[in-house]
C-alpha cells in the first residue's frame, strides 16, 4: 500500500514537472507576445516550445577550447535533479508526497541551496570569459536570495511546529500563511526569482553577457538547461502554494485541483516578471537584499514567533 503510494507520488511529480514546464513556457510566450504588441495566438504558442526543442535537438553539441567536459555535461542534469528534489518535497494532495521526510522544508532548502553549484559549473566549465562572469555573479548574489528564502520558509513552519510540509499545510486550515505572515509570500517570490535566475534576477544569463552562463551551450544541453530552469520556477511556485496559500485546502474540489490552481496562480506572475521588470544590477540587488529584504524576512520570522508564542498560551 505504502509502496504504491510512493509510485503514484513519484509519477505525479513527473507529470507535474512536465506539465509545469510546458505551462511556464506557454505563459512566457503569451505574455511576451502581448507585451510586444503582437497578436496572441494561444494554439501556436502551445506548439512553439516543441518546435524550438526540435530545432535545438538537431544541433550538435559543440565544445570550447579545453573545457571541463564532465562538469559541463553534469551542470544541466544537476540543476534538473535539484529542482525535481525540491518539487518532490511538496505534497500535491493529502498523502501524495514523493519525498515523505520529517523535515521537508529542510530538504527543499538544501536542494535549492545547491542550485548555486549547478549554475556556477555551467558558467565555469566551458572555459570562456562571459559564461564565467555569469557564474561569478550567481555566487556573488547567492546569499542575497538564499537567506530570505530560508528565513521565510522557517517562519511559515513556525505555526505548524513542524518542519514537515503536510503539517504546515494543515496548520493553515483556519488562516492561510499569506494572511498570517503578509511579508512571507512577497519575499519568498522575490527570492524564488533569484533562485531560478529569472526576469529581473536573470543575472548569470543576462543579455549584457549575451546569454552568460549558457552562452556556449548548444544542442541537447541547451534544451536541458532551459527545462531545468523552468522546473526550478515550478518547484518554487508549488512550494509557495503549499506553505503560503494553504496547499490542497479548499472547498468542493479535490485537494490536488486546489494545489494545481494555487501553483499556477504563483507561477504566472513569476514568469511574467521577465517582460515587465528590467534586470537589476548585481551589486544593487545585493545591497538592497542585505539592507531591506533580509531585515524584512527577520521581521517576518519574529512576527511568526510571537504569534506562535501567543497561540501556545
Amino acid at each position, binding site marked *: 500500500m505504502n509502496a504504491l503510494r510512493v509510485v503514484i507520488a513519484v509519477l505525479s511529480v513527473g507529470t507535474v514537472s512536465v506539465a509545469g514546464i510546458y505551462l511556464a513556457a506557454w505563459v512566457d510566450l503569451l505574455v511576451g507576445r502581448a507585451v510586444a504588441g503582437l497578436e496572441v495566438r494561444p494554439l501556436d504558442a502551445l506548439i512553439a516550445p516543441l518546435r524550438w526543442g526540435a530545432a535545438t535537438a538537431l*544541433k550538435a553539441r559543440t565544445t570550447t577550447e579545453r573545457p571541463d567536459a564532465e562538469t559541463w555535461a553534469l551542470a544541466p542534469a544537476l540543476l534538473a535533479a535539484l529542482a525535481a528534489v525540491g518539487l518532490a518535497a511538496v505534497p500535491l494532495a493529502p498523502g501524495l508526497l514523493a519525498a515523505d521526510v520529517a523535515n521537508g522544508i529542510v530538504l527543499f532548502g538544501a536542494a535549492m541551496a545547491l542550485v548555486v553549484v549547478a549554475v556556477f559549473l555551467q558558467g565555469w566549465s566551458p572555459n570562456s570569459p562571459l559564461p564565467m562572469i555569469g557564474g561569478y555573479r550567481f555566487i556573488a548574489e547567492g546569499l542575497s536570495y538564499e537567506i530570505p528564502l530560508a528565513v521565510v520558509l522557517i517562519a511559515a513552519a513556525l505555526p505548524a511546529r513542524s518542519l514537515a510540509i503536510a503539517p504546515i499545510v494543515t496548520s493553515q486550515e483556519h488562516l492561510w500563511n499569506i494572511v498570517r505572515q503578509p511579508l512571507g509570500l512577497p519575499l519568498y517570490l522575490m527570492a524564488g526569482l533569484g533562485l531560478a535566475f529569472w526576469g529581473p534576477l536573470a543575472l548569470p544569463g543576462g543579455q549584457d553577457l549575451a546569454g552568460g552562463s549558457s552562452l556556449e551551450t548548444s544542442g541537447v544541453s541547451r534544451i536541458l538547461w532551459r527545462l531545468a530552469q523552468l522546473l526550478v520556477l515550478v518547484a518554487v511556485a508549488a512550494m509557495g502554494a503549499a506553505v503560503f496559500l494553504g496547499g490542497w485546502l479548499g472547498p468542493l474540489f479535490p485537494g490536488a485541483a486546489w494545489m494545481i490552481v494555487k501553483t499556477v496562480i504563483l507561477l504566472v506572475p513569476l514568469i511574467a516578471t*521577465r517582460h515587465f521588470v528590467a534586470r537589476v*544590477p548585481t551589486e544593487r540587488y545585493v545591497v538592497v537584499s542585505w539592507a531591506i529584504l533580509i531585515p524584512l524576512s527577520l521581521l517576518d520570522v519574529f512576527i511568526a514567533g510571537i504569534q506562535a508564542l501567543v497561540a501556545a498560551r
Partner: protein
Amino acid sequence: MGVKAALARLAAGAPARCFAVVGAEADEIAPWLRLDPELAIVDSPRAADVLLVLGRLDDEMLRAAAGVHDAMPPPRGVLSWSPRGERPVSWPPGGERPVSWPFTDDVRVDDPAQIPAACRRLRDELLSGRRASSPDTLPDIDPAPWRGVGPFGQGGAGMTGGVPYGRPLAARADDRDGLKLDQILVRVGPYLPPFPSGLVLDVKIQGDVIQEVSIPTPAAVAPDLMSAGAPSLTGERALFNAALTQPVPVADIEVARARHHLVWLAEALRVSGLEAYGRRVLKLARTMRPEAAEPVDDLSRWLRRNMSLRWGTRGVGMVSASRAAALPGGPVARAAGDGRDARSLDPAYGRLGFTPVVLEVGDALARWRVRIDEAQQALALAQRAGQSLTTPIGLVEGPCGPIGGDRSTSAALVTMLPELLVGMEWGDAVTTVVSLDIDMAEAALPHDAAVAGRAS
C-alpha cells in the same frame, strides 16, 4: 533517421535562428530584422542555425566573422547580403590586398526583403539534411604552441603568469576589497550583441569588475568601413549628410531623428532584459507618424514609471560636465548639461521655437531621458515644420551628434571609453556603452565623408 526527419518537420515551423554580423551600409536593414516573425536574432552563435553576414566588412571584421561561424554548432549555414550585390567584403586601408572570403557555400541574396524567407529556406534545408553543413573556415589549432617553461610548464612563475597557447594566464592582483584575485585579459567584440557592431575592447577583468580597458588597434576599433570603393551613404545617414550642403525638409530630418532614437531605445530595452517591450518600441519606430504621436507619449510615460529601468541606469556611466565639454556635442553631452545643438544655429529651427533638450545629471538615466524627450520633441517639430527646409550651414545635428565638424561624437566617445569603464561591474559597463549610442561607422570615417559631401 525517422526521428531526425520528424524533428526536422517539427522544427520547420520555428523561426530561423540567426546570429547577425553587421558591417557598413547595413544599419538600415539590421535593426528591423528583429521584427520579422520568420527570424529569431540570437545572442550567441551557439544558438544559431544561420550566420547572417550583412553589409561590407573589412579584414579584421571578416576574420572575426569566420571565428563566429566556426563557433556555430552544425548543421549551420551562411547567408550574406551586401549593397550593390558585391561580395560583402571590403579592402584594408592600403587597398591592394583583397581579403579572401572565408565562406565557401554561403547563400547570397540581393534584395534585403528576401533575407527572412531565404534564411528560413536555408535553415530547413540544413536541418532536414538536404544541404550539407557549412565546413569550418579556420584550422582547429592552438593560436600558439604551449611553451614548456618554468616549474609548471606554462612559462610563468609558480602557478600564474606566462602565455600558454599564446594567451596570458590569469595573474593575481589586489581587488577593491583588498583580496588577491585572478585578473584575466579578455578581448570583447567586434560582434558582442549588446555592443555596437565593430567595437573591440581589450578588457582586464577581476571577477566581474573591469580593471583596465584599452582599444587594441585603430584598425580594429575603427574598421575601415566606408573607404572601399565609393563611400555610399544610405537611408538616415544619407539624409543627414545631404543636409550639410542642401536644404532638406525639417520634417524628414526630425522623423529620422525620432526613428533613430526609438531604434536605439528598442535595443537598450532588449539589453536591459525587456526584450518583448523592446520589440514593441521597434514596431513603433517603424510605424510612427508625426501627426499621431500619442503612442510615443504613452511610451515615454511607461518608461518614466518603470522603476526597474531607473534602478539599472541611475548614477551609472557618469559623464562629467568637463568630459561633456570635450565632446563635439550630441545627446550624451546634452544629458550632462552641455546645451550645444547644431539646430540652435539654424534659423529654420529658430522660427519653429526650437530649444535643445538639456539635463544636468550626466548618467545613463539622463541619456535615456534626453533621447526619449528628443524623440518626442522631434515628432512635435516635424508636425509644426510643415514644408519648411533646413538651412545648410555646414553643420548638421545628427542623432548621435553634430555631423560636419572636425571630429565625430562617436569617435570621441570611443576614445573616452577606457577611462569611463574602469572600475565598473560588467553589467554597468554594458549599460554605459549602450547608453552612449556609439555609431561605429560614424566613428570610422565621419570627417572625410563630410568633407567629400561638402566638396561635391
